[in-house]
């Protein structure tokens, strides 16, 4: 597996705002609750701080609220109460959340969510449309990322021509295209065999080594053990928050 690079400072495609302070945590949740249809409480008064460059795994049984928390951090949903702060800045102060998602967040889903009609290259490039990167820069970045996830030479293939593990690697390449500060992954190995899951996990470790903050939602404790810190949730609340002995 090639070495993952995520050099925001020297990258021509970096267009995001500067960090709001070295001391501010990458992610902070203050008394965050989320309810659906008034009765179902998915998150209950969550308080959480995740430092810059941390690799955090969130575990727990189905329906415990771990994906909901990830969606709130990704600005794909809004809390019923409380605040989500990224680099010390409340997400509600963002005028354009699309820009936040595009420039700060890399998203990896369990089911890859690749565009079946597009080539692998276009699947990575898609998040860079409309950025300040030129066509040449976009293409070079997409090729480079595909090479880093061991898919060099297959740029013109379609997602349907790949295995599940390979598709997830494309999804990771796409998530890294805009040099995010935050990589959010929701059960990224949930649909993979153990070998493919191992490859994907290696990629996360490589990304983490570049200084990207990673929040990985998983119900698989073996996967979670690869993180620096494991947050265990149950019934919408954090019930354990412990460091691991993973060699990061």
């Amino acid at each position, binding site marked *: 597996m090639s070495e993952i690079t995520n050099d925001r400072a020297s990258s021509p495609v970096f267009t995001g705002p500067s960090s709001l302070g070295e001391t501010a945590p990458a992610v902070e949740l203050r008394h965050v609750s989320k309810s659906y249809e008034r009765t179902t409480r998915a998150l209950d008064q969550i308080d959480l701080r995740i430092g810059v460059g941390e690799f955090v795994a969130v575990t727990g049984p189905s329906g415990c609220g771990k994906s909901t928390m990830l969606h709130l951090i990704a600005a794909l949903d809004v809390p019923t109460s409380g605040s989500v702060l990224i680099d010390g800045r409340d997400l509600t102060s963002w005028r354009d959340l699309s820009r936040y998602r595009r420039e700060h967040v890399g998203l990896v889903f369990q089911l890859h969510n690749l565009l079946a009609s597009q080539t692998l290259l276009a699947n990575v490039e898609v998040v860079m*449309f409309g950025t300040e990167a030129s066509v040449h820069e976009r293409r070079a970045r997409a090729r480079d990322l595909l090479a880093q996830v061991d898919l060099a030479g297959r740029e013109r293939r379609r997602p349907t021509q790949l295995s599940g593990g390979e598709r997830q690697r494309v999804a990771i390449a796409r998530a890294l295209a805009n040099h995010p500060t935050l990589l959010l992954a929701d059960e990224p190995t949930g649909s993979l065999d153990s070998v493919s899951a191992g490859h994907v996990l290696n990629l996360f470790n490589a990304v983490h080594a570049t200084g990207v903050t990673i929040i990985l939602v998983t119900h698989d404790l073996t996967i979670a053990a690869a993180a620096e810190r494991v947050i265990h949730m149950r019934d919408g609340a954090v019930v354990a928050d412990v460091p691991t002995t993973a060699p990061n």
Partner: protein
Amino acid sequence: MDGSETSVDYIAFMLRGVWAKKTRSIGLAFAVAFAVLIVVTLQVTSSSLEQSAAAVMSVGKANITVVQKGVADILSSTIDEGELGSIRRTPGVTSAVGVLVGTQKVNADNPVFIEIGINPTDLAAFGVTVVAGHPYTASATNQVMLGWRAAANLGLHVGDRFHALGTWNTVVGIYSTGNAFGDAGAMFPLPAVQGYNRLPGVVTLVFVKVANSSSSRAINAVVRRITYAMPQLTTITTASQFGRADVTLVYLKAAVTASSVLAIAIGAVIVGNTMLLSLFERTREFGLLRAVGWTRRRLIGLLLGESLVLALVGAALGVALSFAAISLLGQVPSLRGVLHVTFSANAFARGLATAVGMTILGSLYPSIRAARLVPLKALSYE
């Protein structure tokens, strides 16, 4: 990020999106093509008929053509000799030539043959040059002059006999007017045509030449004098004014406009319906694009761009089909001589506007609806 991306890779991304649903895209392009076919065919047919009417008016190379107001078609116009005399006496008028125009079917190739009744003394003022033989005399019976195109089409020469006005006539001369429509007809002494049509003392059109013909003010002054003195008549100085006299043409143009609007409306509904189906199929895709940072505006831009691609393909297909349809119409025997097909740039511009208009109209609502999808819900859409 806005919706103005036009780079090569973005366009390729858009085209792959269109091509991914081949059957639907082809169906949509054909729906657009069908609407364009209707609009272009009706437009070309209508403008061709208008040009045929314009050709009748322009035979006399006059500054002003005087016609009876509000007739169904210009050949139904009747102007009596008294009115003709008044026109001739109008200040500023140098000549006023009254002609009676009729049509007859000569043979299958000439179903609408133009017969012009005109006095031989008016031939020069009417712009007629006799190129073979001689003119008929004012009181001649059974004499005819053929336009050079008509003579060539019918294979007739000076001295031959030609059946018209219910009798056999001797071709005494061949003429040229420099006007294709006039040169494809025949000229007779005015009384002969009036007698055959039982319209004694009546002409169809009066072709007026003005003293200072290069001055639009002088022409307008004569127009005002004629229409003030004879409000039952109307004047035509440009092709766009034919509607003043030819009501049928006005109705025809109105029908063309109405049919075009209907075709666009039906087409837009088909496009909208297809795009809505596509929206349901591609909900997860749109949810993903929003989740990874695409703005609503960019998503609308993508969908409208895809529609525009289909519009252009449909327009090209529609224009090609309308070429074929109009060529076939030109072969219909009853339309020969009436429908002088001319493919104007205006007709094709309308075709393109139709294609773009109906696809944008039809895809606007589905595009906005796609852009308003909640990313999280769209991503979990089954």
